[in-house]
């Protein structure tokens, strides 16, 4: 693989996403401030805002950097450069995951830090939810890269948003979470750890699948 060109393409996407990243960080900071305010209402509002920021950041990223290359007809320009389709796919995966990880990591660390200061029992629930959102983002990214279709990407996003509701319903009723979430200490049992591993595995599998399916494509443009 042409690592020099992959690096240049990753930097290009970072450059074009600098304002959306800043917006996601600003929205995330606001949501953390709401959570930290301490009232039930602000906690709920902050949580909803946090989830909204994560979903919006992920979808916007996949749509603009991947689907947008095709719909805006910049893909022929990129592919005129000395790269192969695999280089392009690698650049898109690295750029997207690294860009998404910046606000995701910041907001995850911020959320967990706030919870550790008085609501430690919520940490497993928050971690599972945030990692689920990262896994969902990886699935959306995989669909965007493989299909390059706005329709498919939006459809999968909508399905995963519905899935998130079901996920939250299920997780808050898991014995390991339900028993301890109102306490001050985080408790990880076998069920929550297993679910966390599954989420991480889904994330890696989605990224790997994107790479495999792209490498099998016969026509790239």
């Amino acid at each position, binding site marked *: 693989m042409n690592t020099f060109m992959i690096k240049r393409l990753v930097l290009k996407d970072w450059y074009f996403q600098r304002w959306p990243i800043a917006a996601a960080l600003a929205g995330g900071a606001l949501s953390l401030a709401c959570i930290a305010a301490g009232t039930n209402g602000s906690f709920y509002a902050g949580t909803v805002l946090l989830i909204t920021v994560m979903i919006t950041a992920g979808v916007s990223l996949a749509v603009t950097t991947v689907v947008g290359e095709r719909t805006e007809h910049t893909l*022929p*320009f990129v*592919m*005129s450069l000395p790269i*192969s389709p695999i280089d392009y796919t690698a650049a898109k995966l690295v750029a997207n995951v690294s860009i998404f990880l910046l606000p995701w990591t910041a907001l995850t660390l911020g959320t967990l830090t706030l919870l550790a200061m008085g609501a430690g029992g919520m940490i497993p629930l928050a971690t599972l939810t945030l990692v689920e959102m990262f896994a969902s983002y990886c699935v959306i990214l995989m669909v965007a890269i493989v299909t390059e279709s706005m329709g498919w990407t939006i459809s999968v996003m909508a399905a995963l948003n519905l899935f998130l509701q079901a996920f939250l319903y299920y997780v808050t009723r898991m014995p390991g979470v339900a028993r301890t979430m109102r306490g001050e200490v985080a408790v990880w049992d076998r069920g929550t750890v297993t679910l966390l591993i599954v989420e991480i595995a889904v994330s890696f599998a989605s990224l790997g699948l994107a790479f495999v399916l792209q490498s099998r494509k016969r*026509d790239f443009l």
Partner: protein
Amino acid sequence: MTDLAVYLEGVSKEYPHFTLADINVALPTGSIMGFIGANGAGKSTTIRILMGLVRQDRGTVQVLGKSMPEQQADAKRDIGFASEDMRLYKRATVQWHLEFMRSIDPKWDQSYAELLVKRFDLRPQQKIKGLSHGQRVKAALLLQLARRPRLLVLDEPTTGLDPVARQEVLGELMEILADDQRTIFFSSQNTLDVEQISDRITFIDRGRVIDTGDKESFLDRWRRVRLEVPPGVVLPALPGVVGTAGSGRLAIVTMSRFEPAITAAYHDAGATVNAVDNMTLEEIFVANVMSRREGKVA
């Protein structure tokens, strides 16, 4: 094969509603090939195969000595590619694009890029979304030209340009050929552009190459013969006749392999040759396509 910049042999690609069949093209280094075809003839598909962006079902593709699509990353170091459907990043400026290309290509010629910016009347600080169509095309072409590629592959580079912009682009392409190691392969529907700058021509229609050769031989061998045919005279069946039109005593015969002896043959048959007209490349292309579609071999 080492002096061939582009070599396609027996290349085929099948889609549900279109088939590119048995494409053979050989382009020597230092030539300009005009690749002419109507809409949907297979020009863009051929170019995408040539660039390694579409994998052929059958056949061999070698570009600058590299097998495509496997070695496309290597080959594209020396290929400048611009296509009609190519767009630059609309939120970025011309300058950003210049710097981006400069950062990735060690062969980038900054002084040539600056010269082209002036010659193409572009403003570096202007965002792409504020450019006219002609300016966008010229900006995209500039980014490829300043890489000083050994091979320039252009898919409909002059489509949608006004006459002045078209001449600017064609003039630049002709200047490139001052260096005899540089090669241009470009597709177009505009036969006037092709006639101006190409030294080799390939016609493609309905997914098949229907004729190929150097431009001068095309222009030399195609003629339109105007005849006066008295009643009772039957014109002889001569090789290379691709069409006969006219009414009454007047007939116009289009020929793909004209030679002086042909006028004598018509004279011997009793017809009078009123004129032998040269044909433009557009007339040759249309006559060639129509005769092939009617099953006559040009």
